[in-house]
C-alpha cells in the first residue's frame, strides 16, 4: 500500500539499470548514518525504550516512590487487580468501566459524524475552506480550554446549555457535571464537538484520493447517489477506515482531561477514567507498582480490541462486494 503514496515516479528497475533510492554508498563512511541518527536515538532510548521496559520492572515491585525500599513482589500487583475486594481492583475496574462507557458511545459518533461532514465538504462550493476551518478550529484549542469552556456552558444553574433548553421548553435543570447519565452525555458531546474536525480532515483527504473515473463509471452504469456511496466511496475509504477506527478507539480509551476538568470524576468516581485513575494512583498516591500494572493491563486490553478491529475489517474485505471497485 505504501507504494501508493505520492512518491516521485521512478523508472522501473531493469536488469540493465538497477536503480535504488539510495545513492551509491561508496563515499559514505560506515558510521555516517549513525551520526545522523544519534540525537534522535538518544532521546528515543531514554524516553521511549527505557520507560517501556522500566514500566514492566516497576509493575513487579512494591514501588512506593516515597519509601526507601522497593521490594520485588512478582505478579502480586497484577494478582491484586484481578482479586475482587483488594485495595486496587475495585477502583481500577470501576475506572475501566468508565473508560468503556465513554469509548462505547464516543467512537461510533466520531466515526459517523465526521464522515457526514467530510462528504458535505467534499462537494466543491465557494467558501469550502472556511467551513472546513470552522469544524476543525475547536481541535486546536486543547483539552484544558475546551474543558473550562464547557464546564461553564454546562453549569446547571447559570450555563448557556440549560438556558437554551429552557427556551425551547425542554427541562432546564439538567445536572450535566454532577450526575450520571447526564455527565456521560456531556462528556461524549463535548468530545465530539472538540475532535470531530480532526477525523473529518482525514476523511476528506481520503475522499479526494478516490479517482473521479470511478464515479464517472458508476454514473455511466446508472448508479444513484446512494449506490455511488456504497460501491465507490465506502470501498475507497476502506484503508483509511481501519486507521481512523483504531486511532479514535485509542484516543477515547485515553480520555483524561475532559473528566479531570468538567466533572472531576464526579459523581463519586463514576466518570473517573482509567488514565485518570492510573495518574492518581501513581503520581498522587505514589503507588507506582500498582499504577504501572494498571497501565499494562489497560494496554493489553487495548491491544486485543485493536486486533479485533483489524480482524473485523479484514473479514469484510474477504467477503468483498463484487460491485466494489478494488484499488
Amino acid at each position, binding site marked *: 500500500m505504501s507504494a501508493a503514496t505520492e512518491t516521485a515516479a521512478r523508472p522501473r528497475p531493469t536488469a540493465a539499470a538497477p536503480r535504488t533510492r539510495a545513492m551509491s554508498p561508496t563515499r559514505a563512511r560506515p558510521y555516517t548514518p549513525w551520526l545522523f541518527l544519534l540525537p534522535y536515538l538518544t532521546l528515543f532510548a531514554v524516553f*521511549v525504550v527505557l520507560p517501556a521496559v522500566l514500566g514492566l520492572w516497576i509493575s513487579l515491585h512494591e514501588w512506593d516512590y516515597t519509601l526507601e525500599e522497593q521490594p520485588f513482589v512478582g505478579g502480586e500487583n497484577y494478582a491484586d487487580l484481578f482479586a475482587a475486594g483488594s485495595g486496587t481492583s475495585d477502583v481500577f475496574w470501576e475506572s475501566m468501566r468508565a473508560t468503556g462507557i465513554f469509548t462505547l458511545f464516543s467512537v461510533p459518533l466520531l466515526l459517523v459524524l465526521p464522515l457526514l461532514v467530510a462528504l458535505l465538504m467534499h462537494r466543491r462550493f465557494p467558501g469550502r475552506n472556511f467551513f472546513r476551518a470552522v*469544524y476543525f478550529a475547536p481541535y*486546536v484549542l486543547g*483539552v484544558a480550554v475546551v474543558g473550562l469552556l464547557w464546564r461553564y456552558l454546562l453549569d446547571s444553574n447559570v450555563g448557556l446549555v440549560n438556558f437554551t433548553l429552557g427556551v425551547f421548553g425542554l427541562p432546564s435543570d439538567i445536572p450535566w457535571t454532577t450526575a450520571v447519565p447526564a455527565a456521560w452525555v456531556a462528556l461524549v458531546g463535548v468530545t465530539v464537538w472538540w475532535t470531530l474536525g480532526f477525523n473529518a480532515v*482525514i476523511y476528506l483527504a481520503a475522499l479526494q484520493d478516490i479517482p473521479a473515473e470511478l464515479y464517472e463509471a458508476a454514473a455511466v452504469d446508472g448508479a444513484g447517489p446512494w449506490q455511488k456511496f456504497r460501491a465507490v466511496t465506502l470501498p475507497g475509504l476502506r484503508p483509511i477506515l481501519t486507521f481512523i477506527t483504531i486511532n479514535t478507539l485509542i484516543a477515547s480509551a485515553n480520555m483524561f482531561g475532559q473528566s479531570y476538568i468538567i466533572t472531576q470524576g464526579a459523581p463519586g468516581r463514576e466518570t473517573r477514567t482509567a488514565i485518570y485513575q492510573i495518574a492518581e494512583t501513581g503520581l498522587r498516591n505514589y503507588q507506582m507498582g500498582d499504577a504501572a500494572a494498571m497501565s499494562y493491563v489497560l494496554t493489553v486490553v487495548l491491544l486485543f480490541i485493536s486486533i479485533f478491529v483489524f480482524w473485523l475489517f479484514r473479514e469484510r474485505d474477504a467477503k468483498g462486494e463484487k460491485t466494489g471497485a478494488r484499488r
Partner: protein
Amino acid sequence: MTETTDTRTVPKVRGSGGIDHERPDRKRTPRQRWGRAAQYVLLLLLALIYISPVLFMVSTSFKTGADAAGVPPTWIPAPFTTQAYDTILTAEGTPVLRWFANSMIAAALHALLVVVTASLAAYPLARMRFRGRGTVFAVVVATILIPPVILVIPNYLIVSSLGWLNTLVAIIVPTAASAFGVFFLRQFFLTLPVELEEAALLDGANRWDIFLRVILPLSRPALATLALLAFLTNWNDFLWPVYVLFTADVQTLPAGLATLQSANAVRYDLLMAGAVIASVPVLALFVFLQRFIIEGVSRSGLKG
C-alpha cells in the same frame, strides 16, 4: 509557496473521450438557485452554532463577575469591562503571563528539538544504505502504537532522577522523540529527486553539506508542518504538565488553567479570560497557517 492543500483534488480525467463532465452551473432554474441559497444559509447557520461556544467564551471574558454568573446568560457584556483580565494578570496565585511565557518557551523549544532530531534521523533512513536501517525504522515506527499511558509512570521516575521534576525541561525533552516526525519526514525526503544530491556528490560535497544545502531547503513545507504540529501538541498537552509541575511559577497554561479553576471555581469571567489567553496564539497560528496544519493532519492518516 509551492504546494497548497488542494493539490490532491480531482485528478485529471484521462481518455474520457471528450465527454463534457462539467455540471452546467449557469443553466439553473430560479428554483434551483433558491435551493442552493437555502442550502448555503443552512450550512452557515450550522457553522455558526458550531463555533458559538468559542464566541460565548470571548464575550464572557469581558463581563463582570456578576454578569458572567447572571441568569439568564447574555451574549453581550453589560457593562463591557477588561476587569477579568486585569484580575488574573495581577493576582498573586495565578501568574497568567508567566504561564503564557512558560508555554511559549516550552512549545517553541520542543518544536525545534522535534524538527532537528527527526530530520537528522529521517535523512539516512531515506537516503543511505547501511546495515540495520530496516530494523531501526521498523522499531521507531512500531512505537507509534505504544499507548502513552505506559510511559507516564516510568518517565516520571526517569525525569525525577535526572532532576527535572518541576522544571520546563520535563515538558520540552521527554516527548521530543517523535516517531511520527521521523516517518513523516522520511516519506517526504523520498519524494525529492535523487539527481540533485548525486550532482552535489560529484561536486565533492559530503552528506552533511547535502543535508544542509539540498535537502533542508527543499523540505521547508514539510519541516514547517511538523514544527507546527509539535508546537500545538506541546502547547495543549495536559496530563503530563499537571502531574510533573507543582509550583505556579513553572506551570504551563493548560496546567495553570486547572489551578485557576480550583482557585476560582465559579468565577466564570476569570476562567474564560484565562481560556481566551490560552486560545489566542493557537487560533492565530491556525488562521494564518491553516493549510500546513490541515496537511499535517491529513498525512497522519498515513494513507493506507
